[in-house]
């Protein structure tokens, strides 16, 4: 009991330290490094909270993908210190903000402590009826079946975010290659990594997505690993991102959500309600949609990391 309490305490303190460093770091680059550390420690906390799926997602998306994007931006947004100094509020405002935020945090802490000990949640019913859906991993069951609409909307938000990021680019670059250009690495550590890691990564990614049905894993986590491998290859100059106007990329992006939507309509026809998994087709349809979603998530995350088009085709 004491060991648990000690471990949790230590993890919590480390996370708090990383968060404080992220705020107080002198340069943006250092802050981002702190943030990536915070993300990894947070995934440790999720394991302690018996949420391994979330730990995977936090590590992959929360710390990994977000970390890459922020690192990229930290490198490109180096200047402007004078403007930042001018815009930083005075001591009084900072103190007041600290006080108010602290007060809110205190209120929140009291509210968390005042939460009722036992609450009749839907979890028991979720566990009991997971057999109907055929998914052992309850979190996957909630994501794909019970709250299917959430996941559908969320995957559409991802696709939409890609289009929104692309639309940030200037008109003249539309149809061009997104993201900065990386010189092709002949040899050196990055070339080595970019040649050895992706095959292993792809196998692991697919494994995570596949095993998600019955054990911690799933499409978002698997998709992120696949995206990471592609970004590594792109970073090493081994592969060129597709043109923004390329129909195939858009099809891959849209395959997941559209597949989920069609399966939902199929469920409405066969099983009487939209987004129901028809008993007849059951498992194979679910796996097909899961695979399509993994591909779409991988493509979306990779393209979000790459960013808006910055040069003609």
């Amino acid at each position, binding site marked *: 009991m004491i060991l648990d309490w000690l471990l949790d305490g230590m993890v919590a303190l480390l996370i708090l330290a990383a968060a404080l460093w992220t705020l107080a770091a002198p340069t943006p680059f250092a802050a981002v490094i702190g943030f990536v550390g915070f993300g990894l420690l947070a995934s440790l906390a999720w394991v302690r909270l018996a949420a391994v799926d979330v730990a995977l997602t936090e590590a992959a998306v929360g710390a990994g993908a977000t970390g890459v994007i922020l690192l990229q931006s930290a490198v490109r947004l180096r200047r402007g210190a004078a403007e930042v100094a001018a815009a930083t509020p005075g001591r009084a405002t900072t103190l007041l903000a600290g006080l108010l935020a602290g007060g809110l945090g205190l*209120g*929140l802490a*009291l*509210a*968390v402590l*005042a*939460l*009722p000990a036992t*609450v*009749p*949640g*839907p979890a028991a*019913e*979720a566990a009991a*009826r997971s057999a109907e859906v055929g998914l052992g991993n309850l979190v996957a069951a909630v994501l794909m*079946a*019970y*709250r*299917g*609409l*959430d996941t*559908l*909307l*969320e995957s*559409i*938000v991802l*696709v*939409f*975010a890609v*289009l*929104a990021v*692309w*639309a*940030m*680019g*200037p*008109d003249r670059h*539309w*149809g061009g290659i997104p993201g900065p250009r990386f010189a092709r690495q002949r040899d050196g550590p990055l070339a080595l990594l970019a040649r050895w890691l992706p095959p292993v990564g792809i196998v692991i990614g697919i494994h995570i997505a596949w095993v998600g049905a019955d054990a911690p894993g799933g499409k978002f986590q698997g998709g992120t690993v696949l995206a990471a491998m592609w970004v590594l290859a792109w970073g090493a100059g081994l592969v060129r991102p597709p043109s923004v*106007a390329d*129909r195939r990329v*858009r*099809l891959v*992006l*849209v395959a997941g*959500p*559209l597949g989920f*939507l069609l399966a*939902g*309509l199929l*469920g*409405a026809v066969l*099983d*009487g*309600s*939209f*987004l*129901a*998994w028809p008993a007849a087709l059951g498992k194979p349809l679910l796996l097909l949609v899961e695979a399509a979603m993994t591909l779409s998530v991988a493509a979306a995350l990779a393209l979000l990391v790459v960013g808006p088009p910055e040069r003609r085709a």
Partner: protein
Amino acid sequence: MTATTPAGWLLVVALVLPVAGMLLAFVLGGRAAERLALLLLGLGVGVGVAVSAAVLRMGAPIVYLPGGWAPPLGLALVADGVAAAMLLTTALVLFAVALFGRAAHATPPDQAETRAALAYWCFLLALAGSLAAAFLGGDLFNLFVALEMLTFAALSLACLEGKPSQFRSELRYLLFALIGSVLYLLGTALLYGGYGTLDFRLLAGRTRADLPTLLAAALMTAGLAAKMALFPLHLWLPPAHAGAPPAASALLSGLVVKAAFVLLLRVWIWVLPPLPAMAAAPLLAALGAAAILVGSLVALRQARLKLLVAYSTVAQIGYLFLMLPLVLSGAAETASHAWLGGLLQAGSHAFAKAAMFLAAGLIATALGHDRVTALGGAGQAVPRAVFAFGLAGLSLMGIPPSGGFTAKWLLLTSALGDGQWWWAAVILGGGLLTGGYVYRVLAGTIAAPPGDAPRPRPLPHGPQNVALGLALISVALGLLPLASFGLVQIGRPGALGALP
């Protein structure tokens, strides 16, 4: 709890149509996107009418359980009076704005696809989908996802033109909206911790007035107020809405703000226990009153027309908050009047503000600038747009026989009936100030163009007719008999059925 009702499939169509449309439009590219968008938004109007008719016929909210899973485990799509009315309003405004934008955002013949054209039509469909999800959602977390998608769609529409000055104001909008969303999410976490479900119909009547519930309500209200640009938190709205292209700012001011308002109603009228709600409602109404007075006063002094209209949005949002203390006041008569008044204000403001922004856009293109002091000649160049601006102004001022008048009359009588006369004074003061800045613009456009200014070029009648149509709808809302707005009362906790 409640199974899927007969007309429930309509809700799925209302949600799936625009969303699937966006995915297809994104794949099919420029020109196909435009045709698909126009087709789907047209169908959207049909679906909106069908949903409202179904709700009216059944006299009770329509429910659909996706996947057959009943809450608290699954999600529910709910179309009660409020949702149906707002769905219909948004469908009409969206279709009108789509027609308005055809000329400006068509793919030029020589190119296969341009950024602005594809983006405009996809974002329009995404906006339609997210608005439908925000109105029809029954689960507070599902509403969070819909709200996020709505913010992204609105943001992308706003910086479509990519003007340099626009990126800073849009970034302010995104960051402030994100703070709002996260506070809202924090509220849902506490609510789930307290009750084990997030379906607002399950929560209605079962919430206790304890610490977590009240903090959750405070966080969610503040988050939604930030997304609605309620007075002290309006820093992002004027530059974001003024800098956006006319079609985008019409949607931003008219519709996007209303989605957060409907969520606010869900929290305050359904989820919150009545006693604390009644105590805190005057605080929100006071901020609303401040929004009306300061917003109108600052609008009166604006140098640019689009900023003037944007500040008018900040002011008119205040009216929506005035209805809270009246609806929660307990007296059934006052509550139903105020409820109808508030929602009629939301509806007529949606049409009027959309018409006003479209008209302002046309005036700016005709004159080449939008300085309020030099609007001379606009009356001759784009007469219908100026007339649309005037009609919309009348509706915002609350001059009979417009929808705005009926809304403000209902709020006025319920405020006086309940003895809270100070809200009545604010409503009248707001009307006067609104009259001030509407007159300032109209008088400017009627005047003769200054000698040296370049001849304002007359614009085609198509887009002007759209703006005029929207303004006429806003005025026509005032002519409809009060009994016909019974739709809005359906599904309101404590409603006495249709208005007497």
